């Protein structure tokens, strides 16, 4: 049986990849994918703990996260399309009107 720490390590690596991608990438779609990566990193730690402690709550949480992620991607993709139509770019550094 694979020890718990392996799962947690993999989960941490996935999350770190997501954070890094989120911070350094300029393309909105890539940033979006990084967010999904972070979510799935968290999901992995949830199921790992659920299996380790024989508790169902962690697995239920994963379903919640997946539902929320689906909803979020629906809204997010719609926003990306709208941004692309009006500004004709997907570079986040050029989407900076919301400031004083």
């Amino acid at each position, binding site marked *: 049986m694979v020890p718990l720490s392996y799962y947690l390590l993999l989960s941490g690596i996935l999350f770190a990849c997501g*954070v890094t991608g*989120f*911070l*350094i990438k*300029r393309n909105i779609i890539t*940033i979006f994918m990084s967010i999904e990566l972070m979510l799935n990193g968290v999901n992995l730690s949830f199921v790992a703990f659920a299996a380790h402690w024989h508790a169902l709550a962690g697995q239920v949480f994963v379903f919640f996260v997946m539902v929320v992620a689906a909803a979020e991607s629906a809204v997010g993709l719609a926003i990306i399309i709208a941004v692309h139509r009006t500004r004709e770019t997907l570079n*986040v*550094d050029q*989407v*900076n*009107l*919301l*400031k*004083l």
Partner: protein
Amino acid sequence: MTSSLNLWLIPVLPLAGAAINGFLGKRSSRTAVSIIGLFFSGAAFAWALQVALRFSSITLPYQEFFAHWIRSGSFSADFSFYLDQLSLVMLLVVTGVGFLIHIYSVGYMWDDPSYYRFFCYLNLFLFFMLNLVLANNYLLMFIGWEGVGLASYLLIGFWFTKDSAASAGKKAFIVNRIGDFGFLIGLFLIIQHFGSLNFTQVFDQVKPLGIENGGAGLLTAIGILLMVGACGKSAQIPLYVWLPDAMEGPTPVSALIHAATMVTAGVYMVARSHVIFERAPIALTVVAIIGTLTALFAATIGITQTDIKKVLAYSTVSQLGYMFMACGVGAFSAGIFHLMTHAFFKGLLFLGAGSVIHAVGGEQDMRKMGGLRSYIPWTFLTMGIATLAIAGIPPLAGFWSKDEILLKAYQNNWVYWLIGVITAFITSFYMFRLLFMTFWGDYHGVQVDDHGHAHAAHGHDDHGHGEPHESPWVMLGPLVVLAALSLLGGFVGYHNGFEHFLDPVFGSGVTEAAGETVSSATEWILMGVSIAVGFLGLIVAYILYVSKPELPKKVADSLGALYDAVLNKYYVDEIYAKLFVKPLVDGSTSVLWQGVDRKVIDDSINSAADGAQHVSDNVRHMQSGNLRSYAGWIAAGAAVVIAYMIWMGVGR
């Protein structure tokens, strides 16, 4: 126990009328408004009459409970009504005279654009006045007391687009508040010491107390404070200044509120509290002195006024002084008697004055009238009766009540009597002066072809001939009824009938027994004197204003400064303005406005706002608009939180 009298109907009927006219009147026709206004006030009168007819078969005092109002510890004040001989008299006067004046108003106010508003207010006034009269505790009475003040304010300022009317309304309201302040403190004292405001409960606790002589006692304090309240409402020195200004209101209002009913509320209140006053001789003396002085003081001002309504206003103040004088010498029933007869003849005088003003197209200056006798005979006849009545000519109403008061005053102290007689002479003089200036001689007015040029509201009919003309019957009818009452109303006082009727209320009097009784010979002499001064006033006025019209000018010139002082109402308004109004205005401007409001309140708020602006100006630069820097901040923040949790040791 008798079956319920349903007293609540009496005040509630006018309230319903006020509500209907107030909410729906704007869209209704004048006829509908008049029918509603008249129906509800008339119904209240009818119900009051019905109560009066059953009066002999009910046990008195009759109390009727409707609902709990305030219950706090042992203190309670309820919505309940109290009926005894005193409230019955007031009830009939208020509803009866009120109904007559409603009828009169239909004619007088017909062309006013705010016709419905007038009837709404008038009905509202009746509601509050009846509440005042019927209340069984001081607090409910106070509601009525304030309510009639409100109605008075609304009706004085009825033509609120006119600046003088608006400020007269405010003046009445503010001066009354000063009196109410005293009234309220008096009520607080009553609550503190007797734990109740209910008339029967308070008076039952007061009755075992002895007569206070020290002048520093509780009852004296309560009595004087209540008198302060009465001074405000009933326009006595030093708070009388609002009543002459209140003549800015429509004339039926002057008749109903500022002559017949509301201003007598103070007298009613003092008479209702007679149990307290009888045990506080100093308070009674204060009442008597204020009343006597006011009677004389206002009467002298009345001599020089040329505005027909102002003369009547000062006359009202003076007659109210008589009533307080009567109460002050312990003759409460005489005071109430005069209150009733005064309601008849002064209501009639005001309505007559309204009819005169109506006839000459809105003119109120008596110098521009004259010779109206032949133009408006009915008005002349009824006003003549009222003048004879107020002058104390037997056998009209005023003679009976005034004579009663003077007799009681003489029994108490001859000084009161002397001033009363002098006042009676002056009263007779200025009333006949009014009558002669208005109805005798030649007509001095402009030929009225432009109806209602003085008050837009007085334009009334379309037969535009150039002469004064008689009022319509809807106005003359109430005049005739009131004239009949002024003629015959005094006879209820025959053989002290009225006094005996009120005996169950005032019978417990302590002071009355103390007063020395006079022999019947003295009584006849006193009566003779009061009749004589009545006729003397008539004769002097006739000489000055009919047979030798050039004489008044000479008399005025020879009196010089004294005449000027009286003409300017003893400069009381000016003195008050200097003494009270100006310091208040100055203090408010320099201390409260410039000092507190601008320097403290405004400045602290402004500096707080400036500070917030500075801080936010610095903070807003954090909003760069760069999405990735936001993300960096979030990641850094999360890292800090996680580091903190690890540092502190989560879950331990």
